[in-house]
Structure formats: C-alpha cells, structure tokens
C-alpha cells in the first residue's frame, strides 16, 4: 500500500464555498438585481467607479454574488474585464456637452445657464425614517420630472470657461500636453514615475472612495496646501462615441454614461513653479535647459483641479479634484507625492495584499526564526 498525501485544502475550500452560499442565500427574501440597480444606485455607482467598468447590471450581479461586499464586487468586475478584449477607445468625452441633471457652483451666486440642485442628500435631515418600513414594496414614484428632462435637455457651458476667456485660468504644462498627445492607459500599461496627468486622473477615478476622501480631507485640514473652491460640480449624461470601424471619418454611438464632474479652483502663484525647479535639479533637467520662460510676473492665477467619476458621487469627484491639484502642484509633503497617493488607493491592490497575509508563511517564518536563533546564540555565547 502506497503512501498518499495528507489532503485537506481541497475539502476545506469546497466546504468554505458551500458555507458562503448558505450565508448569501439566508432567509426568504431573495434580492432582485434589477431592483438593486433601481434602488441602490449610489452603491452601484461606487462599485462601477472603483471597478472602472460602466455596467450597472453586472455591478448588481457582483454585489449579489458577494453578499454586498464592495471590495469583492469590485474585484469580480475587474477580473471579468480582464478577460475581455479592448476593442476600441472612445472619442474623448467633453464634460461641457453633458446633459445635466445637477449643476452647482460654489464660486458664483449665479452662473450663465443657472444652477440646478438636482438630487442630493445635502439638504435632507438625516433622521431615520421609520415610515419606510411600511413603504409598499412596489411603491413607484411618478417619473414625470425625468421625462421632462428628456424632452428639454439642459446643457450649459463650464464655469471655468468664463475664467479661461479672461486668462485667469492658465493651463499647467501637463494639462496642455495631455490635450496634445494620446493619454496613458493604466489598464494596459504599468504606471511609470513621474506620472503624466492622464495616468494620475485614471488611477484616482478608480481609487477607493474612502481613501481618496481621507487624503483630500487631510489636504484641507493642513497636511497639504490645497484650499479649493468648488468652481463647478455637474452630474449628468454623456454620450460615448467611437470612430466608425469601417466608415472613415464617421462616428458610431455606443451608449450613454452617467458621470459627476468637478472643477475645483485654487489660487496659484506663478513663482511657486520656480521654487519647485530650484529644489530639484532632476526636474530642471527634465524641463530642458533650453526652455525659454515668458517674462515672469508674480501675479496670482487660478489653478484647476479636475475630478470625474461614474454615476452620482459628489464626494469622490471633489476629493479627486483636490488630489489632482495637489499632485499637479508638486509641493512638499506626502500628499503631493504621486508614488504615495497613486500606489496605495486601489481597492483591489490594497485588499489583495492585506488579505494575502492570511496565506501560510511558514517557510519565510522559519527563515526568520533561523536568523533570530543564530544571533541569540552569538549574544548568549558572549555573555557566557
């Protein structure tokens, strides 16, 4: 009789999966993915944002499959997307073309086109509403208002365009560059440091919302130098088009996505760019010795931080705009350090690496023990 391996892993995993299924299917009220798309919209938005995949139905399925765990749902969507071929890149979307559902500016009392509050919890009183317990399952709100929106689409120029016309907003060098060249694609290529702005924005758009919020908050509280005014926050629908694969010069409409876009305004001194160069000979060389400066005036300008997220997510979009500016400005401190900010906020990467600590590490631990024992042996020999 031959020896056989002592197994256990296989059975343990199978039992664990069976148990998960049991937890997921508790009780007599199964969840309907369609209802989740309709009634858990903000959660769906968060998951699509962090997954970097715009598909409410799949997001709902992922949530269902993961007992509502956000990081698991994001994980499922990201993994699913890896198996798909990237067939096309869309034509760049322009936030100014948005069919608006919400548009506010904290910088102006009134703006051309008007402000529109739209749907927000900002002005609700956060009182737990026990009457919802008796709300009938199929309570349906008349959707006349949204139909009205479809009949009379609301478009408006960006607030920042008003300031651009006045030359008060000056695009930063990377900003200008990103409109000239093809943006980086972080889903296909690894990040390289220092990062171009397009890569930074992509990473932050997919970043874990809480992480980004915490960094932005720290920035405001004094660990950074960012003091923003929300120039404009707009939520609405954007059309996605691609170059027609067959007909030259024609475009093909592939759908619509809902997004929230934020432009935050910061006052910016031209002089500070000189500071940055003074501190770092490397950056100076990068800029090229031959660059000729304009006649420098130390007047103030408005700098813009940009945030864009899937769906309705004011907080993440604002946080992103603050961090965009903070990274663009490259001032002192960890909140302007692109390696720190961009490498530690990805939902998948952080949860993957933290959870891997649960894997067995007995080989490495034994190596560690060997070193500890050998140094102890030496010291004990010394003391003896």
């Amino acid at each position: 009789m031959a020896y056989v391996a002592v197994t256990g892993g296989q059975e343990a995993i199978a039992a664990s999966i069976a148990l998960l299924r049991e937890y997921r299917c508790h009780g007599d009220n199964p969840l309907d993915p369609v209802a989740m798309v309709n009634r858990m919209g903000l959660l769906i938005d968060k998951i699509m944002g962090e997954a970097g995949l715009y598909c409410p139905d799949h997001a709902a399925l992922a949530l269902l499959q993961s007992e509502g765990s956000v990081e698991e749902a994001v994980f499922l969507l990201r993994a699913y997307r890896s198996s798909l071929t990237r067939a096309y890149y869309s034509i760049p979307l322009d936030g100014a073309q948005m069919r608006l559902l919400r548009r506010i500016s904290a910088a102006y009392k009134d703006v051309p086109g008007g402000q529109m509050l739209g749907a927000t919890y900002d002005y609700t009183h956060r009182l737990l509403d026990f009457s919802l317990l008796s709300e009938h399952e199929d309570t349906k709100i008349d959707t006349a208002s949204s139909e009205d929106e479809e009949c009379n689409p609301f478009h408006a120029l960006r607030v920042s365009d008003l300031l651009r016309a006045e030359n008060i907003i000056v695009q930063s060098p990377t900003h200008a560059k990103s409109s000239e060249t093809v943006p980086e694609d972080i889903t296909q290529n690894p990040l390289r440091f220092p990062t171009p702005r397009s890569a930074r924005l992509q990473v932050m758009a997919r970043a874990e919302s809480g992480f980004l919020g915490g960094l932005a908050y720290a920035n405001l509280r004094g660990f950074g130098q960012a003091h923003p005014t929300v120039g404009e926050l707009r939520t609405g629908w954007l059309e996605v088009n691609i170059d027609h694969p067959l007909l030259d010069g024609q475009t093909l409409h592939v759908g619509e996505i809902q997004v929230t876009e934020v432009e935050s305004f910061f006052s910016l001194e031209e002089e500070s760019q000189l500071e940055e160069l003074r501190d770092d000979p490397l950056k100076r060389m990068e800029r090229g010795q031959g660059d000729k400066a304009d006649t420098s005036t130390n007047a103030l300008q408005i700098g813009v931080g940009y945030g864009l997220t899937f769906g309705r997510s004011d907080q993440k979009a604002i946080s992103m705009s603050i961090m965009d500016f903070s990274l663009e400005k490259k001032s002192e401190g960890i909140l302007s350090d692109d390696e720190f900010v961009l490498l530690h906020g990805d939902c998948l990467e952080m949860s993957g690496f933290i959870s891997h600590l649960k894997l067995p590490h007995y080989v490495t631990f034994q190596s560690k023990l060997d070193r500890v024992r050998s140094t102890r042996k030496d010291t004990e020999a010394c003391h003896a």
Partner: protein
Amino acid sequence: MLEGYNFAFLDEGAKRQVRRALLKAVAIPGYQVPFGSRELPIGRGWGTGGIQITLSLIGKDDVFKVIDQGSDDSVNAVSIRSFVSSCTGVEQTTDTSQATLIQSRHRIPEAPLRNDQILVLQVPLPEPLRMVEPREAVTKRMHAELDYAPMWLGLYEHIVRVGEVKIGADYPVQVENHYIMLPSPIPRFDNPKLHMNETLYLFGAGREKKIYAIPPYTQVASLAFEDHPFRIEDQADRACHLCGAQGVFLDELFAEDGQKIYQCNDSSYCLKRMNENGE
C-alpha cells in the same frame, strides 16, 4: 472548462504583452521589466504575477503543477490549480518530474529541475532596493547606474548591529555580476539552486507589475561580504521524520507532546521517497 471565457482566461492581447515582457526579461537577466498587469479572479498579492505568466505560456499539451510553501495541497495551491484547470483544461500533476510548467510560491522543488521545464515563482515585492529607498523613480535610477552601495551599506549595518544579515527568506542575489534581484521569498536554502541551473526561472509580481527572469546557466550570487559568507538555514543533524531525508528543506513541527519534529517541506518529494523506500 469555464463557459464564455477565452482559453487561459486572459485575452490574447494581454498574453502577448506578458510574453513580450518575458522575452525582454530573459534577454536581460535580473532586470525587472514593467508590464501591464491585469486583474485576475485571484487576489492581487496571492500570486497574480505568477498566474499571468502561467496563463500566457500554458498550452494544451502542458502538464501543470502548483506548489505553495512546498505543498501541492496548500489551500492557495489548490485554488490556483483549480483556476488554471478550469480555464485551460490542461493535465495536472503533483509529480515534479512529470510537470512541464510549475508555479510555486516561496519554494524551489527539491527534485532537480530540467531544461525542458519552466519554474514560475510568485513575487510579492520585487524591489531589492526598497529596504534602503522607498521611491520607485529613485530605485529605477539606482539600478540603471548600478548604484548599489546603499544596499551593501544596509547589509553591513545589519552585521555591525547584530553580527548577522537580518534577512531571512527572500535573500537578495546579484545576477551575472550586474543587477541585484530578489529571488522571491524562497528560503536561503534555495538560493544556490538559482546559480548555473539548467531550468528557466520566471518571476512575476502582479500587484507591483514587474516580470523578471533567470535563464538557464546564469551566474547568480547571493550577496555576501568576503569574511561573512552567505549562509543557508542551519538544519544540520535534522532528518525528515517521515522519509528520513537529509539535506533538504525541513519544516519545523510540534508533535502532540510538544517535542520539535522535522518533516520535508516539499510534500511531493517526501511522498515519492516514502513510496520508493516502501517498495
């Protein structure tokens, strides 16, 4: 087989990208090639770098083996094996000598590897210079300039302070007298197996998005000072309580009575020996 997914899960474009990175890695031994690491259904940090290499290389005729910490039956090995199996359908084995493609976490198998086999190692943190420099932009420059004095200084400091290099597993090596590289958290016992071996070693770090390689017959030296030679784990006078093997990496276990006992870490090797001895 998984319904609705490509053979070996990844789309063909992604596989080609990984293979291009592998070719570059083989051409420049020990150099960390950045690659567009994809998300997988397995956790980032759970071997996704190794799995992407495996998925990009595996063909229908391959025979695949996975070990984790020396064991074919560890939960993570089981999980990776069943994933690769479900999206490729290739033959699996636990027998090292039968496998054409072996993916491993934290160990190099005891049985000598051959030229017609590939060992894929999973890497959690690929950057050896991270212990002295936190920033990627700087470490990349340091590699380019072979600016390794800070690394040696770190090791020297260990010796000055505690009389010993403190690194347990994942002990850094220098490849062909050029790049310093981490061998992934294999025990120091396995480091010598990297040197002038006839097998192709591939290293994948999924979360950190790096691939590197040690091609067959490459010189690989563990970092050491002249008067502080590199030393593997001290396992003299120990033997496997099951198969009696010596000179292999042994796990330290506690018997029911609290006594320490030792057992082959490489479970498939141990099993094979027991079967041979039994016959």
